[in-house]
């Protein structure tokens, strides 16, 4: 959590695994998501292989998983994130960005 995060920003948490090609693809896709949000978007990346306790704590069973941490509520998407539109819709970010002067 980032309690200092300004209200007009989005914090996403991306869980990836050690499988290099999958992790790289997920990060490619999340860059497209960052572009689509159209304003400051902070992204934390967690490697569940390097940090298995975090995966257990956050109950991650699939990577990539992308979680909308801020603004609340917490919402999570499981998949390769290739469909940026569907990912943004599932996270409710597009509507939120429109209401806060963002792009897309």
């Amino acid at each position, binding site marked *: 959590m980032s309690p200092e995060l300004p209200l007009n920003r989005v914090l996403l948490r991306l869980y990836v695994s050690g499988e290099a090609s999958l992790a790289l693809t997920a990060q490619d896709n999340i860059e497209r998501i960052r572009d689509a949000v159209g304003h400051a978007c902070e992204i934390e990346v967690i490697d569940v292989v390097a940090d298995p306790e975090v995966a257990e704590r956050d*109950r991650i*069973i*699939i990577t990539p998983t992308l*979680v909308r941490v801020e603004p609340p509520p917490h919402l999570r*998407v*499981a*998949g390769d994130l290739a469909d940026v539109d569907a990912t943004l819709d599932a996270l409710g970010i597009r509507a939120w960005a429109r209401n806060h002067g963002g792009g897309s």
Partner: protein
Amino acid sequence: VTVASDAGLTAEQLQTIVESAADAILVVDGDGAIRFVNPSGVELLARETHELVGFPFGHPVATERPARIELVTGNGQRRIAELRASAIEWQGADARLVILRDVSDPVTEEVSRLHLHVRGLSLRLTEIERRLRDVED
């Protein structure tokens, strides 16, 4: 009228099909929680049914092509799988039917990895083209 009713299948027969399927079959509700998992799903995820039901899977997002994902299983094994998802109604509410196919087999995995590599190169080319256009503008 459905294919199942056309074929005259009973609920018991349908249950047998679902429970015997080699692929993992899950139902994920509108909040992203698992509501049903078949025996292959229990085996693939290496967790008990009671542990999986209610587990926060997340909203499954997949294009027409299956998404290649990695499973964090209960026994610590990592499995590569293809994920497909489609919209269904479950107990009167919108839900997603998720099919997970284990592609951890080395040969299958290598083919998938090569497909992914080509796809990654394509995405990077698109990004380079976009940046070149930005520079030209």
